[in-house]
C-alpha cells in the first residue's frame, strides 16, 4: 500500500470511529444515564480527521461545544471521553466538564470552551507560547461559522497575523448557528475565508466533506505554521445532520428545511471516502465490515466501562477550584 493509500485508510478509520461513536451516543442517550447536553458532529467528521492527522500529541487543539470529533481525532481515549459523558470520576475531566468541556493535556487538549468563539484566542496564546519557548508546535482553533461573528475571532486573527503565530484557524461552516441560518447573520457577498485577507493571512475555502482536500489544505497550513510563515484560516463547508443539541432530527421540529438535510446526507463524508477506498481496492467490503465491528466492540466496552465507573463524590465537589 503506498503512502497516500495508507493515509486515506487512516483517515477513514478515524472518521468511522467518530461516526460510530456519535451513533453509539444516540443509541444509549434515551436511557438518560448520560446526563450531559450532546452536540453531535455527524456529517462533519472529515474536518476533524483531516486536520488532526497532521498533529503530534504536543500540538494543541481548542474545540467547542461540538467537540467529540476533534477530541477523538486528536487521540482522546474513548473510555475517558464516555466516562466523562456519564459524569464519572475517571472521565477525562473528572466528571466536571461533561460533553462540552473535555480536557486531556497528554494528547494536547488543554481544555474546551463552550462559549462561542471562546477557544479561538486560547489557541493563539498556546501557539504563541510554543514559539516563545522555541518549540516547533502548532495549535488549531476549531470553531463554527457563528463564532466568526464574535469579537474573539477578529481579535485573534489580528493578533496571530501581527505576531506571525503558528496557529491554524479551522472554521467548520455548517450554515447554522443553532437554527439561525448564515444568510440571516452575515452578508453573502463575503465568505468567512475572505475575512482572512483583511488580516493579512491566507484564507482558504474548501469542501469540508472531502477529507482528502481537508487533509491536503490543512497540511499546507501546518507547513506554513511550522516553518514560521504564520497563521492560516481554513473555512470548511459542511453540514450537521443532527439538531444543534441532542440526538434529534431538527428538520422534523421545523428548525431547518428537510430537503437541505437530505441533499447533504447524499454528500456524506464517510460514505464518500469509503466508496473511494473500495473503488481503489484499498479495502474490500469484508475488511470494512470487520473494521466497523472492531470499533463497535471497543465502543460497547467503553460504554460498559463508563456506566460502571465510580461517580465523583462529596470529596470531589470543591477540588481544583484553585490550582495548588
Amino acid at each position, binding site marked *: 500500500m503506498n503512502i497516500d493509500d495508507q493515509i486515506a485508510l487512516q483517515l477513514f478509520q478515524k472518521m468511522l470511529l467518530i461516526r460510530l461513536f456519535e451513533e453509539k451516543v444516540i443509541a444509549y442517550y434515551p436511557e438518560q444515564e448520560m446526563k450531559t447536553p450532546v452536540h453531535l458532529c455527524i456529517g462533519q467528521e472529515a474536518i476533524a480527521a483531516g486536520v488532526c492527522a497532521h498533529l503530534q500529541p504536543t500540538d494543541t487543539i481548542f474545540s467547542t461545544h461540538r467537540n467529540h470529533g476533534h477530541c477523538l481525532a486528536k487521540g482522546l481515549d474513548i473510555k475517558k471521553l464516555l466516562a466523562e459523558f456519564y459524569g464519572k470520576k475517571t472521565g477525562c475531566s473528572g466528571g466536571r466538564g461533561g460533553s462540552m468541556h473535555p480536557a486531556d493535556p497528554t494528547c494536547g487538549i488543554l481544555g474546551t470552551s463552550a462559549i462561542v468563539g471562546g477557544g479561538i484566542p486560547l489557541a493563539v496564546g498556546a501557539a504563541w507560547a510554543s514559539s516563545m519557548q522555541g518549540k516547533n508546535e502548532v495549535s488549531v482553533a476549531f470553531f463554527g461559522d457563528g463564532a466568526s461573528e464574535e469579537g474573539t475571532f477578529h*481579535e485573534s486573527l489580528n493578533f496571530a497575523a501581527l505576531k506571525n503565530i503558528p496557529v491554524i484557524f479551522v472554521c467548520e461552516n455548517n450554515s447554522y448557528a443553532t437554527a439561525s441560518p448564515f444568510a440571516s447573520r452575515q452578508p453573502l457577498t463575503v465568505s468567512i475565508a475572505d475575512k482572512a485577507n483583511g488580516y493579512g493571512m491566507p484564507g482558504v475555502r474548501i469542501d469540508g466533506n472531502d477529507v482528502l482536500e481537508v487533509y491536503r489544505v490543512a497540511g499546507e497550513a501546518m507547513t506554513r505554521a511550522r516553518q514560521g510563515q504564520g497563521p492560516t484560516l481554513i473555512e470548511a463547508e459542511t453540514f450537521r445532520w443532527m439538531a444543534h443539541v441532542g440526538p434529534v432530527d431538527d428538520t422534523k421540529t421545523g428548525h431547518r428545511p428537510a430537503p437541505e438535510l437530505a441533499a447533504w446526507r447524499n454528500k456524506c463524508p464517510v460514505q464518500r471516502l469509503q466508496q473511494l477506498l473500495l473503488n481503489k481496492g484499498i479495502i474490500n467490503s469484508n475488511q470494512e465490515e470487520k473494521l466497523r465491528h472492531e470499533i463497535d466492540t471497543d465502543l460497547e466496552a467503553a460504554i460498559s466501562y463508563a456506566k460502571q465507573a465510580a461517580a465523583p463524590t462529596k470529596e470531589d465537589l470543591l477540588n481544583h477550584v484553585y490550582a495548588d
Partner: protein
Amino acid sequence: MPWTTPSIKTFTPVATANEATHRQRTYREAIAEGLHDLLAKDPSVFIMGEGVDDASGVFGTTLGLVDTFGKDRIVDTPIAENGITGIAMGAAIKGMRPIFIHMRPDFLLISLDQLLNHAAKWSYMSNGQVPVPLTIRCIIGRGWGSAAQHSQSIQALLTHLPGLKVVMPATAYDAKGLLVAAVRDNNPVVIMEHRWLYDNPGYVPAELYEVPIGKALVCKKGQHLTIVATSMMVHEAMRAAEELKKANIEAEVLDMRSIKPWDKECVVTSVKKTGRLIIADTGHRYGGVAAEVAAEIAERCWDSLKAPIRRITMPECPVPAAASLEELYYPNYKDIIRTAQGLLP
C-alpha cells in the same frame, strides 16, 4: 498631566520607617522593581498590554523594561481586551506566566468573558489538569474628573464567581510582594493597584519576596473597634485611627490586602476582641466587599458584637466628573471617625 501626578494632601502613608534602617521605595518603584526582577529571574514571565513599552510605561511601572528585555517579552498589544486576555490565558496554560496590564479596571470589564467564563473556571473544568498562571494588573483611577469609566473599583464584581484571586496592595511593600506572589501563583490573580498610592513611599526590601495571598495585615493594634480597609481606604483608616487616638479611642486597623481569598480568621480574631467593626472599601455598597465581610462577621461573631457593623463605601451612583461631586463621592477619614464615634458609648 494632573491626573497622573495626584497630590494627596489628606494622605498619611502607613509606612513611615526611614531609609537608614528600612530601604524606601515608592509604590510605583516597588512594582517596577518587582517586574524587573521577575523577568530577570524567570524566562516564562513576560508582560503584555496596551502601551506597556511606551514612553509613559504604565504610569512608570514598566518604564525601561523593553530596553532590558526586548519587545518579545514586553509586548505592546492591540486594543482588544477580551481576545488578548484569552491569548494571555492560552500562553499561561502552555507554560508561560504572562502579566497582562490594563491601565484601568474599567477596561478590564471588556474581558470578563475570557476572565470569568474561561480563566476562572479552567482549573475546575479540567479537573485540575490545566492550571492558569495568569497575572492581571489594573490601576484604579480617581480625581480630576476621571468620571464613571476611568475610576471604578470593581473588586466585588470579580470575586463573585469562584476561580479568580483578587488582591489590592495598599503599600509599597505589598505592591511588590503581592505582585511576586501573584506571578508565582498557579491561578489567575487580578492585582488592583490604586493610582493615588503610586507616589507613596514605604519599606521595600531589595530581594524578591512574597506577600502571601489571603493574609491580612494588622496595621495598628487597638481594643475599642476594628476597622477593616482596602487599598486607599487603609490610609484613610490609619489617619482616622490617629485622630481617634487623641480621644483615647484605640482602633485596630486591618489591611485586607487580599480580597479573594480573604483573611477571615484575622478579622474574626480582631472583632472578638473589640466587639465593633467598620469596613471601609473603595467599592460600592450593594453586594460589595464590605457586605461580604459584614455578613461573615455577623455569622461568626454575633455574641462578640457590641454595636452594629458599619460599612463605608462608595455611594450608589457611578463616579461623577465635577470636582464638587467627587468631593461628595469619596468617603474619607472624617467619615470613618464619625462612624466610629457613633459606635462607641
